[in-house]
């Protein structure tokens, strides 16, 4: 009756514990392999199971009853799945149960356990592994809840820390800065000068962040057309681009020009026409395209490649701190899951108690004289009254049980209540 959380078990290996050759041998590279593995899992003593297999890890998350050598049992299952003798991989495995296993899964989902901390793919891979197991039918009540929580934790970590800003690239920083100026980038107009790879990347990032129209200009008309097609922008002639500065919001520049193509005079001339609307200039060229003096103009913000790289570097340092924040979140969530788990222990008791009380109430209602019962209004009132009394009387007991579930005394509190009310067959 009383369950123990250590029925949740994890057996696995990752890039830290096992060499690549071994990971290759034990991995499930195709969906077909995974299906076979899961089907085999179904015939084993394992109650529920999910297999996670990525290039950096192979992990079995299972629900397993009280057997004497559970680790040995699972290793045997894995060995049979992959046809690799146990001795070959046993020393490279980690085995965790209960809270430890939950913590591990939550860290994996938050990408804290990844080779590149903060990389975004793992959550998707986890979802696929779960989806397949669900399809085969090896996911039950417990793993279902556990994995749903894991997805939630992964998203929460991404939302509340900067760990997901894994891409500490220059164009990422540029987009972040643009957001600090314009809020969301919806409907913002972007002018791309030059057609290098850097421009393309930055423009794509801006577009992904919601930027509106994108104009592309280049000394060579053909290349302008090409890039415009790639990023679904619009090519404009190079001669007139200074006029366009009047009504764009972001300018990305990366030409091969040997000297400044945009000087302070060019901009101060058009500033009046902009009526104080902020202009964000991103100079990705070396040597630079835009005269650094323009940064001194009102409402004009110029960042060159060095500025952006400096911030990106600063960011990489910050990400380490973010990881510790993420760890805290994982801890919190492990605690929550474990609370939920313990509360399961008192649920049957609560149900039984309710049924017991309801039976008494019904019985007593039967005893009410017929002349009262026959009046539907009166009867209804009596029903409600008796229900209310029962609920009010039982409420403190339920609170007691739930409190027990939260401070780790679930079992004791449940037993006490059962004994007090004479519930269950054993009394």
């Amino acid at each position, binding site marked *: 009756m009383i369950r123990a959380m250590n029925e949740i078990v994890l057996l696995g290996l990752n890039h830290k514990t096992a060499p690549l050759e071994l990971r290759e041998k034990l991995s499930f590279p195709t969906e077909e392999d995974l299906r076979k593995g899961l089907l085999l899992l179904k015939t084993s003593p394992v109650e529920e199971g999910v297999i996670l297999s990525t290039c950096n890890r192979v992990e079995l998350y299972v629900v397993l009853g009280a057997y004497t050598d559970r680790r040995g049992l699972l290793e045997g299952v894995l060995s049979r799945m992959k046809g690799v003798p146990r001795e070959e991989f046993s020393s490279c495995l980690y085995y965790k149960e209960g809270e430890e296993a939950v913590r591990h899964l939550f860290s994996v989902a938050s990408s804290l356990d990844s080779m590149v901390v903060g990389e975004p793919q793992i959550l998707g891979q986890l979802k696929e592994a779960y989806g397949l197991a669900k399809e085969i039918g090896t996911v039950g009540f417990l793993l279902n809840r556990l994995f749903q929580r894991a997805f939630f934790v992964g998203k929460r970590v991404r939302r509340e820390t900067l760990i997901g800003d894994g891409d500490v690239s220059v164009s990422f*920083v540029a987009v972040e*800065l643009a957001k600090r100026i314009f*809020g969301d980038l919806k409907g913002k107009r972007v002018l791309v000068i030059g057609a290098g790879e850097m421009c393309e990347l930055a423009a794509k990032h801006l577009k992904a962040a919601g930027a509106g129209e994108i104009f592309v200009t280049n000394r060579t008309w053909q290349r302008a057309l090409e890039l415009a097609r790639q990023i679904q922008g619009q090519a404009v002639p190079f001669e007139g681009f200074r006029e366009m500065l009047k009504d764009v919001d972001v300018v990305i520049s990366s030409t091969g020009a040997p000297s400044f193509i945009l000087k302070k005079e060019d901009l101060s001339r058009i500033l009046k026409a902009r009526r*104080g609307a902020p202009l964000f200039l991103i100079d990705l060229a070396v040597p630079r395209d835009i005269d650094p003096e323009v940064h001194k103009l009102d*409402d004009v913000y110029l960042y060159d490649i060095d500025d952006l790289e400096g911030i990106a570097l*600063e*960011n990489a340092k910050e990400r380490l701190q973010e990881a510790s924040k993420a760890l805290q979140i994982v801890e919190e969530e492990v605690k929550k899951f474990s609370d939920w788990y313990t509360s399961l222990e008192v649920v049957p008791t609560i149900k039984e108690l309710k049924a017991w009380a309801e039976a008494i109430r019904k019985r007593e209602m039967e005893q009410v004289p017929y002349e009262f019962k026959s009046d539907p209004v009166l009867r209804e009132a009596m029903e409600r009254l008796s229900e209310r009394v029962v609920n009010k009387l039982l409420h403190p007991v339920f609170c007691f049980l739930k409190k027990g579930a939260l401070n780790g005394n679930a079992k004791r509190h449940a037993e006490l209540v059962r004994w007090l009310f004479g519930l269950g067959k054993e009394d």
Partner: protein
Amino acid sequence: MSLILVGLFLLLGKGEKGGLEGVVALLAFSFMLGASLLPSKRIGGEGLLEGVWFPLHSVSCFVGMGGFALSFCSSLTYLLQDMRIKCKKGYLVGYPSLEFLDRLSLYSLGIGFPFYTLGIIVGAVLAKRSIPGGLWDDPKTIGAGLLWLLYAFIVYRRFGLGWRGRRLSLLTVMGFGLLMFVFLGINLLLGGHHAAF
């Protein structure tokens, strides 16, 4: 006035806030502190405070100034944020965007200015009717007129010409400086009809 400021902020400042609440809260707090510390006395003039005109005068002046206060907060934050971006340090995640601050400033002026204008007109009518000779030489009346001119200029540039950005924010901040002087400085230093508040 604190209430109006905070109310307007909650009404208009939906969405991103980060960093702005601090300025708003500080200003609201100092208004309340000021209100409780400054000397209070009743003003004279028989029959002056009766009827609907006087409450209309003071309430619309206060709503107007609440709007100006909020535009001051957002413009000040705009200037700070502008400085941060110009300094080229870091990501600045969690700070409100320039565009949002600019919009907030615009909206709060849009609400504040009509109310303030109404307040002044009612005040003028009131003074003409109940005080012989009017209050044309009262220092606060003159200050309020100057203030109206300054804000009218700001509002004209913002709404009429569609300007925005750093300079206008600077002007808005300075406008509020003048407001504080007219509102408090004249009371404390020069006296006159409005001396009590």
